[in-house]
């Protein structure tokens, strides 16, 4: 972490608060992490844990009203929090791009798919019509779309979900962004297509030397494709570290619970999935304590009264927020 020059993205103490009728709602609270070049970070959490708000805040995409953002998001040395629309527009596309969750709604239904890509090229990079078309076809080919020349003239309605998500990715890649934010890019797709899209993202990351942030609720998605994982709960980071470390030496009970609730191939068939009792807390009336305490099997009085801060675990970069951490596998001698 010493050489900040190699860091593409540095998020520091980021807080996003919405003013709602029920009072201020902190959707993202005191989040700090960083991301190196050509690295993939996974952000994991349940629905409502603030993943999407976090990724939109990193993009600098907020509603015009009723929202306050504090802290800092440094993208390649440029501050995004508080930047003007005009300044952000310069970063969008070329520095950071986004792949959306639902490919059914993230393409304009009345515009040919090729046009949606080369619009960007012509506006942002000032390419000529012919150059932009050639480049758009190249991009369609890059994301694995068969006979791209023909697909260029297709309307989104004529493409399947997987193909559309490929087009969305091609659009995001048009101006060669340095950071690609993928907000649940495979939720709307079939399982077989999910793997294809994730592999594609992985491969493109290597080829184009991008950094990728993969937002998901599915630990299986991030397991093999990320180098770092951030686990979020109720808008806060509860554990973060290298993927290996989080999977094998997690200390926070919530991480354990999340891992336990995904099916394993080694389980005998008809094994019931473990679920986490209770529901995510209402962000409007959070207690002062750990927000996971009401659902946690290890919770003590201290957990309910005092919020644990992120503390370093064994491996550098591995942090967790828990008063009663699980035993590290290293300590118990398993591995």
């Amino acid at each position, binding site marked *: 972490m010493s050489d900040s020059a190699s860091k593409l993205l540095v998020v520091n103490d980021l807080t996003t608060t919405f003013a709602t009728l029920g009072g201020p709602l902190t959707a993202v609270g005191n989040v700090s992490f960083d991301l190196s070049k050509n690295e993939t970070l996974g952000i994991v959490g349940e629905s409502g844990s603030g993943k999407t708000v976090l990724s939109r805040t990193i*993009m600098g*995409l907020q509603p*015009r*009203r009723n929202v306050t953002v504090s802290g800092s998001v440094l993208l390649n040395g440029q501050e995004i929090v508080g930047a003007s629309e005009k300044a952000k*527009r*310069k970063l*969008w*596309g*070329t520095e*950071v*791009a*986004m792949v*959306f*969750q*639902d490919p*059914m*709604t*993230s*393409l*304009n*239904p*009345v*515009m040919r798919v090729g046009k949606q890509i080369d*619009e*960007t090229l012509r*506006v*942002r990079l000032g390419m000529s019509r012919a150059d932009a078309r050639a480049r758009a076809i190249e991009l369609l*080919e*890059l994301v*694995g779309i*068969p006979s791209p020349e023909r697909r260029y003239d297709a*309307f*989104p*309605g*004529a*493409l*399947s979900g*997987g*193909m559309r998500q490929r087009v*969305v990715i091609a*659009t*995001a890649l*048009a*101006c060669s962004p340095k950071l690609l934010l993928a907000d649940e890019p495979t939720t709307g797709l079939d399982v077989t297509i999910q793997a*294809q899209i994730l592999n594609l993202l992985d*491969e493109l990351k290597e080829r184009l030397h991008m950094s990728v942030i993969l937002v998901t609720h599915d630990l299986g998605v991030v397991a093999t494709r990320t180098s770092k994982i951030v686990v979020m709960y109720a808008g806060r980071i509860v554990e973060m570290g290298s993927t290996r470390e989080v999977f094998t030496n997690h200390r926070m009970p919530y991480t354990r619970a999340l891992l336990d609730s995904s099916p394993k191939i080694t389980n005998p068939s008809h094994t019931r999935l473990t679920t986490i009792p209770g529901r995510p807390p209402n962000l409007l009336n959070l207690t002062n304590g750990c927000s996971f305490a009401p659902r946690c099997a290890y919770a003590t009085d201290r957990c309910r009264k005092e919020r644990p801060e992120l503390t370093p675990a064994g491996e550098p970069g591995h942090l967790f927020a828990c008063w009663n951490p699980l035993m590290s596998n290293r300590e118990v001698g398993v591995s």
Partner: protein
Amino acid sequence: MSENYGEIVIAEYGHPQVEKPEGREPLGVLFWICVGWIGLNLIGAIFANVLPLENPLYENFTAINAAPSLHHLFGTDEIGRDIFSRVVYGSRISISAGVGSMVIGFGIGAPLGMLTAYRRGHFDTIITTVMYTLLAFPAIVATIAVLSFWVPRDLFKIIVVIGIASIPIIYRIIRAATLSVASRDFIIAAKVQGASDRRILFKELLPNVAPILVSFLIIGIATVVTLEGALAFLGLSVNPPTPSWGNMINEARSVMAQNPWLVIFPSLALCLFLLCLNFIGDRLRTHFDVAEVKI
């Protein structure tokens, strides 16, 4: 690159959805007949004074209340004016009232509706409140009131009054249509690709709102043509002897027993025009809807 995805290529090609035929179902013969009729009406209205028509104001006392004949296609009225010529000249007033007021209504209402739906915020709140307040006010009564006192009446004043009265309704429809599009991800996607607001409004939002805009514009014109007829019936349209479909029907009322042709022909013209216009508007709307549903 593509060889890595060999199996996907096969899988995707095998998918029945991929090879959907381009283009939509045809609009149908009836649609084109309607377009032809409207076209004919427009040509008549635009070129009325170039076409070989009798002067609609010329009173031919040798042929009073004549039945339709080769000489007077639709017959003549009680002071010997040629009804065919008056119907064609009358379409001028009726159609210009329809088109003109919709140009004003859509010219102001549509951009405003799109802009507020896209920008939201205080601007939206203020404009929408004003528009809804105006909507609560009965537009017909307001139109009649203004036209009763704003004399002398002429076509221009009628167009302006109806045009302004139509703004809130048009605003509401276009705003609602835009809202449903503006919240979709592809608008945000365009934004984070660095597209400017103007670009998003014209390139992303407008094409999606256009089908609704066009079909509503057509139905709007039909509505105003009817409204002009109703106003004329109340004696609030252009002053006689200038013919409009509405005031021809109004004038003919008193001599209906002696000469029913006087009522029949302008009514028929009005009726067919509206029927065709409504049919076109409706057909276009469903035609564009098909593509929307599949997406």
